[in-house]
Every structure is written in C-alpha cells, then in structure tokens.
C-alpha cells in the first residue's frame, strides 16, 4: 500500500472515537483509493514508456523514410534519363520509318520523274534541231518559215517548262515527305492526295514485284471539301495503308497460285483488288460530320487473334527486315493528332478495310 495511505489508515485505527464499522468502511475506501492510485501510477508509467518508444520509433521511421525518399529520388532521376533516351530513340525510329517509306517510294518517284524528264529531253533535242532549221531558213531569207519554226520552238519550250515544273513538284513533294517533324496544317484536297499516293505506291510496288497485277478502284467524292491537315503526314498514312493493301493482295495472290499448283482441280480465280474511296458524312442527330478515306483490299484478312495488336509499335506480320512494325502505329498517332479516328474491319479470307475519319 502507498506509504501515505498506510499512515492515514494506521492513524485512523488508533482513534478510539471511530467505531469498528466506520473503521471497516474507511479501510475499504483507503484500499480502493490505493488500488486506483496504483492503476494511475501504472497508466502514467506506461504512457511515459509508450511516449518514449513512440518518439524513438517516429524518429527512426522519419530517418528511414528520408533514406527511402532519397532512393526514390535517385530512381526517379534514372527513370527520367531513361525516358529522355527513349524519347530520343523514338524520334530516331520515327525518322527511320519516314526514310523507310521514302525508300519504298523511290521506284515510284523515279518513274514519276522519268516521264517529265523524257519530255524535257525529247523536246529539247527537237528544239536543237529546230534552231538549226531556223538558222538555215534565215540564211535562205525565208522569214515566214523561220517564224513558223520559232513558234514551234516556243511551244516546245513551254512543254519543257511544264514538264520541268512537274519534276520540280515531285522532287519538292519528296523533300516535304522526308522533312523532319510535322509541318503546318493547310487546306488540302484529300482526293488529289489519295490519287497521288495511290499512284506512287502502286508504281513502287510494281518496281519490287514486277508480276504483281492489281485492279485499282477509286471512288472519290467529287464534292469533298478541302480539309485542314498536314498533307505530308496524311500522305504517309495513305501510303502506308495502300502499301499494306498491296502487300496483303500479293500475299493472297501467291497463296492462290501455290494452292493451284498443288491441286489441279482448284481454279485460281483470285483477282487482287484495292479500292480507295473518300466520302463526306454530314452531321446528323446531334453527331458531328466526318470526312472519310477508306482503303479496302481483298487480301487474306487479319486473324482475330492479332487484330488488337496491329496498332502497337513494332508489331508486324511481315518477315524480318521487310517491315519496321511502326507504319500503322505512326498512322494511328498521326490521325489521332488530327483529331480523327482510324478503324479496321477485317474478315479472314475476305479482306481488310481501314477507314480514316476526320471530323468536320
């Protein structure tokens, strides 16, 4: 018992004036008080102990958290560096993809430039002869004939100039295509863009696969308004989709030939076909309008198992070295950057259709 309470109890017990009942009652009260005091002492002691431990624990935990914070900071810096390296690598990859598509175009572009160059060469050779003829006529004094030759000479020069400008435009287009980064958005005639890249792509594909024959169909909406896009970027998208369509048709064509060779009874009636169309879908029912470009082929189609992966970077079904796996991924990014959508609809053994939709 607490020494002071014990003293009080002892003293009270010595007082004769206090009855036994009162002493018994006082004894109980003092014992209860002692018990409460003991509990309070314990509570205070434990609270102090817990407080002390909590303070140490808190201090150690703060120190530990500080170390963890520093470790996270270092990891973060390392991640930041990795991210920058990744971005640089990505930029290089994008540029590589551009150059790869440019490479694919080379044959088509060469064909395109060869035509005007032939005209320039032919007409300039004719002009050399006409100059000689004019000189002879002048020496003869035949002014009328000289004038007639000069007129032909002028017309030929105009043709040379026209075809020179055409070659110039093709070269400029090629340079625009290979330019780094996206250009400015300009009101663009998508039909012209589609025709140009469809032709270039086909010429390029023919240069690689000389036996390839394909029925090209275009169904271009004559009333299509100009659309504000980065023409070179959208051109790359069209080129990519059309190239893939030719590739798919060529694959199916080879497969059909192979099948026929293996079985006399199977008739190979497969005709590759690529259909490119544009169309305008006006706003309706609260929904905004769209301008669409569709590229449809009748190739082997995309298996369901890989449909979800085709827009992933580096995913390709082409043999190693034949494709970067970035074409559709970049196309998706370009269309998205224009606020548009790109959808795919494919059935195995029937073909694949890609549709680009630009909001208007």
């Amino acid at each position: 018992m607490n020494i002071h309470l014990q003293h009080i109890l002892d003293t009270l017990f010595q007082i004769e004036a206090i009855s036994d009942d009162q002493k018994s009652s006082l004894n109980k009260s003092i014992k209860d008080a002692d018990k409460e005091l003991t509990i309070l002492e314990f509570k205070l002691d434990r609270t102090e102990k817990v407080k002390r431990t909590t303070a140490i624990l808190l201090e150690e935990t703060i120190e530990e958290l500080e170390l963890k914070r520093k470790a996270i900071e270092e990891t973060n810096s390392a991640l930041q560096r990795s991210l920058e390296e990744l971005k640089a690598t990505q930029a290089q990859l994008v540029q590589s993809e551009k150059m790869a598509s440019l490479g694919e175009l080379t044959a088509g572009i060469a064909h395109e430039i060869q035509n005007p160059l032939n005209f320039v060469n032919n007409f300039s050779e004719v002009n050399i002869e006409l100059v000689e003829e004019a000189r002879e006529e002048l020496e003869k004094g035949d002014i009328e004939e000289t004038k007639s030759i000069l007129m032909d000479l002028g017309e030929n020069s105009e043709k040379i100039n026209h075809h020179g400008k055409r070659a110039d435009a093709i070269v400029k287009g090629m340079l625009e295509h290979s330019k780094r980064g996206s250009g400015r958005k300009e009101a663009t005639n998508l039909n012209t863009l589609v025709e140009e890249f469809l032709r270039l792509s086909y010429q390029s594909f023919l240069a690689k696969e000389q036996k390839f024959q394909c029925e090209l169909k275009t169904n271009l909406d004559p009333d299509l308004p100009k659309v504000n896009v980065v023409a070179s970027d959208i051109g790359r998208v069209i080129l990519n989709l059309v190239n893939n369509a030719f590739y798919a048709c060529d694959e199916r064509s080879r497969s059909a030939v192979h099948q026929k060779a293996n079985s006399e009874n199977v008739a190979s009636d497969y005709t590759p076909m690529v259909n490119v169309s544009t169309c305008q879908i006006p706003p309706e029912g609260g929904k905004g309008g769209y301008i669409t470009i569709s590229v449809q082929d009748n190739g082997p189609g995309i298996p369901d198992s890989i449909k979800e992966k085709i827009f992933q970077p580096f995913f390709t079904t082409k043999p190693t070295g034949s494709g970067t796996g970035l074409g559709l991924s970049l196309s998706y990014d370009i269309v998205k950057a224009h606020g548009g959508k790109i959808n795919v609809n494919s059935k195995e053994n029937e073909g694949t259709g890609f549709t680009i939709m630009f909001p208007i």
Partner: protein
Amino acid sequence: MKAKTITGNNPEAIRTALELAVNEGFQPTLGLVFVPSHFDYSGIVAVLDEHDIAIFGANTPDKFTDQGIENDLASILLIDLDPAFFRIVLKSLPTSDYEAGVIVAREIGQIGCSQFKRPAFILAIAQAEVPGEALVEGFLSGAGEDAQVVGGFTGGKPYWSEHAVFTNKEQSQDGVMCLIIDQDRVEVHGLAVSGWKAVGTPKTVTRSEGNWVYTIDDEPALDVLLRFTGAKVDMNESDDLLMQIGTFPLQVIGNEGSPVMKPPLMFNKETGAVLCGGQIPEGAKIRFSLPPDFDIVETVIDSARDLKKQVLPDADALLVFSCIGRQMSLGPMIEEEINGLNEVWKVPMIGFFSLGEFGATKGGKATFQGTTCSWVALKEK
C-alpha cells in the same frame, strides 16, 4: 454441468477442498489443473485419481481463477461433465519442426472427429518452439476448417524449459495436450481479442526459421527491434527481451483479415536472432505495434457481454487464455480484464497467461496469435 474452482499449495490442501465439495454432493469428473512452474503435481494427480477425475494439467507460472490472479497455488477447475462427452489427448512433440507440428495436430483433430461429430479442441502446449500456426493448420486440416480451437502455450519467464503438461498417467515437457469436447453435448463459444495498433513502415522478414527471425530488411532482427523501440535489454538475459519489448509485438501483415501478432520472446546475441511467439515466414511484411488504449479492457469484456446477450445467456464454466504481454502492458488493469470477464456469467473460471493464443477473432476461423485474450464459455446442453 456443475463447476467449481479450488486452490491449494499442497496435495493435502487440495484433498481437503475437494472432499468439502464432494460432501456437498458435487461429483467432478474432469479437472483443469494449473500449477506453478516448480510445483510437484504428482500428489495432486494422486488425489484426483482417487476420485476418478480426468486431468487436463499444466505447469505454468502466471494463472488465475474466478478468485483472482494467484501464482503460488495450484488452481483447479472441477467439472462434473459425463466422461462420454470429452476426451483428453496428450502427444509428445520433441521437435519444433513445422511439419511435425502439423502432423501431430492433424492426428489429434482426426481423433476428435472419430469420437464426436462436432468436436471442439482446447489446448495447452508445452513445446514452446513449435509454430502455433502449424498446430492450427493441423487441427483445421484434421477436423475441418470451421473447427473450434482455443487455448494457449504454457510457461513463461523465467522458467522457459521447466514446465510440463500432464494427464493422470502421462506428462511431457514438450507435449501438445488437448481436451476434446463433444459440441453436440456442450456448447463451446469464445472469441480472441487483441487491440494492439500498428505503427511505423512495413518491413520485410528476410531470413527466418520456424519461430526464429534472423534478419529484418537484411539487418539482424535484434538490432532492428532495439533500434526502433529504443529498449535497453540485458544482453546476458535472453528472455529479458520479453520484459522490455513484449509490449510492442510485431504485427505480421497478411493478405486478408486482421494482422497476426507475434511478440518477441527471447534473443540469441551471437546470431542477433529473435524468437517470436509464432512463426514469421521469410518474405512476410511486418510492422511494429503499440499497446492498446486502456479501454481495451472494456472491449474484451464487451466481447463476452455481446456473446452472452446474443448466443449464450447462461454458461457453466469459463476458460481464459490471456497473453503474457497483456499482463505486462495492462499491469494492475489486467485484473479488471480477468474479473470483468468473470463478472459476465459469474461462473467458475480458470486460465493462465500464455505465450501465444489459439482462438477465432470476430467473424474469422481459428488462428494462432500473440497479445490476445482468448476466452471460451462452456454450457452443457
């Protein structure tokens, strides 16, 4: 079913108390006997044998009855339950190996199922180093996932190795003793309540074997414990760890349910390893914990009041297994907890302060924990 507690400091005192009860018409058939660590219980066994009383006995230093906490006397809860409604099984478990623990417990679980359709298992374990989790796993695999498993590890400072569990004919210092009760005849209801609160950041146990934890976050476990708790431990007294930081058990964070409490019990100063009240597997996430607020005493008592109100308005006897860490953490208030539980049904009660408890937390199945007060009320149907 009638029950009565008697105490005595020698066999003769027990004989006198027992005969007094018998003369009043009480015919006990079962005795739960808890005696101090150094107590020679053979005389008491002989007295109970004379009266054909089956013994569920243990040496254990800190114990109590409905008369209060009493560490120096032998305490016995006598029950007059039909011997057909219970069995007592004692199995020696000389190894601390986890699998061995599972096998022994499963065997007892299967014995229970072979004897009764719905057995309940009340345990006193003298093998301090076997993971309690192994025993629970064994009982649940042998008797079904919903089996009632209640009890505790006997012993405590400073007599780690000098305690035994015993029956009328057998005794073992590394034994697993089990009282199997037929729940079709006796209602067995209980709950395990803890109250410790997690603090600090989660840490990982990086090396452990059974109940020994060697490293935490690759640092010797003892260093981590002392650093984070600021405790001063007598390095020559291995079990001083329990006295100094038993109040701050480790909480093992599981994938689901309540965290499981594992109080540190002893250390090995050569290896820096710490023996915990239960297994902590490698890779387990742990946190330190602070003792509960003082109102935990009311929480424990309320858990019994709720059960009384909702399920068991009357009981015949009460068994309590309270963690030794609670005794240290609640000090003189532990008496309030024990007495408060006793006040709920006001029936004869016996229990001891344990080194790990078996029981079910609210809404859960039986588990093994530290820092809990695991109580169980019995009522013959």
